């Protein structure tokens, strides 16, 4: 990116399961949005760009509540869980081109107390990735939900590369360890051992229950602006060095890719690293969209942190834990902090780069990566650096 955009505000709600947030879908997201706007030193009236999460809100509703005086930019990126990071990229371009001065990106849901994440897809065909294709060619055979769709790719990876359940377990255990250092993590106070993981019941073999993300209530948000405006806000910005998103071919059908392991990230990562002018070796931590354990392993491979087929060995031995070579999901991720659609990954990356991560701070963190994953393997990536 020629003129670096930056993140100047982050906000989160409490993350919870029982009894739930007690707030509306919009109210919950507004709470996170207001915190992000205040964190940036702005007022709601100054927000002139909003990028809601697909199916979870309209820019008009946010703007009316925040009192935005001139909402001149809005856009929704239809990439499921890849949307927040993909939105970061579009927001950076928008402020760079003067389409907006301050872009708010909110995301959140009552994923526990409202429509549960697992039910959303099977009960609302209009929100199905692939739309009619899934309805006509997957659902009649009971292939109805994300853990089922993705686990067929995980099995193929196990077949071709010898990836083992214990290695997926290392990912679940690492996320849970990190959650013990995060008071806002739903799984704080509930440690997990590899034995616990292996003993957990199968859900969609090879996925066990502990391979799957949480279902939680919560919201998070960020505010993006230009480097120039950030200076005026007197806030230490976090710069977007590179950002890209991509979709596999075809994106609407998961079984017929010539290269079955290709994801949107496979294409987006080289673009983002190219913009940033760095390599994966230069990265101090990575917040990887962890809807399920194997997707973390696969994204580490496709982003270039290791070679394809080597992800299993890469996640072993504490390498992805705090203190390891590449700490992954220092907040606990979707697996152990909360399922905030990956927006919590962006917030955590900013917190790390501000040096505000407390007990879980990655010492000397200068460059961090955030990824998003959605639908049938859409991908997004942002490379962030501290000021």
């Amino acid at each position: 990116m020629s003129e670096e955009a930056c993140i100047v505000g982050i906000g989160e709600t409490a993350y919870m399961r029982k009894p739930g947030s007690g707030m509306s879908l919009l109210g919950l997201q507004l709470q996170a949005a207001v915190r992000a706007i205040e964190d940036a030193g702005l007022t709601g009236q100054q927000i002139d760009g909003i990028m809601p999460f697909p199916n979870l809100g309209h820019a008009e509703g946010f703007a009316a509540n925040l009192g935005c005086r001139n909402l001149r930019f809005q856009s929704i990126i239809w990439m499921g869980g890849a949307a927040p990071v993909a939105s970061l990229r579009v927001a950076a371009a928008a402020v760079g081109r003067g389409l907006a001065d301050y872009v708010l990106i909110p995301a959140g849901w009552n994923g526990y107390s409202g429509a549960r994440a697992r039910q959303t897809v099977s009960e609302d065909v209009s929100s199905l990735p692939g739309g009619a294709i899934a309805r006509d060619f997957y659902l009649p055979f009971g292939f109805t939900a994300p853990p089922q769709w993705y686990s067929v790719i995980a099995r193929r990876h196990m077949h071709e590369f010898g990836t083992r359940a214990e290695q997926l377990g290392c990912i679940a255990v690492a996320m849970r360890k990190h959650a013990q250092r995060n008071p806002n993590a739903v799984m704080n106070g509930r440690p997990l051992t590899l034995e616990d993981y292996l003993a957990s019941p199968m859900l969609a073999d090879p996925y066990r229950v502990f391979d799957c993300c949480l279902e939680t209530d919560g919201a998070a948000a960020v505010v993006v602006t230009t480097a120039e405006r950030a200076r005026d806000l007197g806030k230490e910005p976090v710069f977007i060095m590179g950002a890209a998103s991509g979709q596999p071919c075809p994106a609407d059908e998961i079984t017929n890719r010539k290269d079955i392991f290709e994801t949107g990230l496979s294409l987006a990562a080289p673009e983002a690293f190219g913009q940033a002018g760095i390599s994966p070796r230069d990265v101090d931590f990575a917040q990887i969209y962890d809807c399920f354990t194997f997707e973390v392993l696969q994204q580490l491979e496709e982003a270039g942190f290791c070679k394809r087929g080597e992800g299993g060995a890469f996640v072993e031995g504490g390498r992805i834990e705090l203190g390891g070579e590449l700490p992954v999901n220092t907040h606990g991720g979707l697996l152990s902090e909360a399922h905030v659609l990956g927006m919590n990954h962006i917030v955590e990356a900013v917190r790390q780069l501000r040096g505000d991560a407390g007990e879980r701070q990655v010492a000397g963190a200068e460059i961090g990566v955030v990824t998003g994953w959605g639908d049938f393997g859409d991908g997004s990536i942002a490379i962030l650096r501290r000021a």
Partner: protein
Amino acid sequence: MSQDDTSIATPLPELEGLTGAFYGFCKDGELRFQRCSDCGSWRHVPREMCADCGSWSWEWERSSGRGTIFTWTVVVRALHPAFQDACPYAPVVIEMEEGVRILSEITDCPPDELEIDQPVEVVFEDASEDVTLPKFRRVAS
């Protein structure tokens, strides 16, 4: 299981357009995929154009009906109420001799006997008065 759960119907395809044509052949006991008339490449699921060469010309060509198991999942806990009684069951990806892959199930194979590269052949199973689904059974390699 409550009565409400068992009353939820199994989802069926909507028999419109190219999808309707695909399932229409299944009803007649034929597995057919689109094949590009220009570059000869096969495709599934149905598409308007050839993604390989851009051609709009294609025909519904008969598949040999034979393929091998490419991968699968075993659904132990249903995430759609219509499939609660079916657990455990295995959605399977089959790679056909023509090169396309199709999501289906193996009718004569318990999930714990599934094997990658196992040869299979198509069979047809009526799911309703109007819909016949292509499913598969094991054949000797």
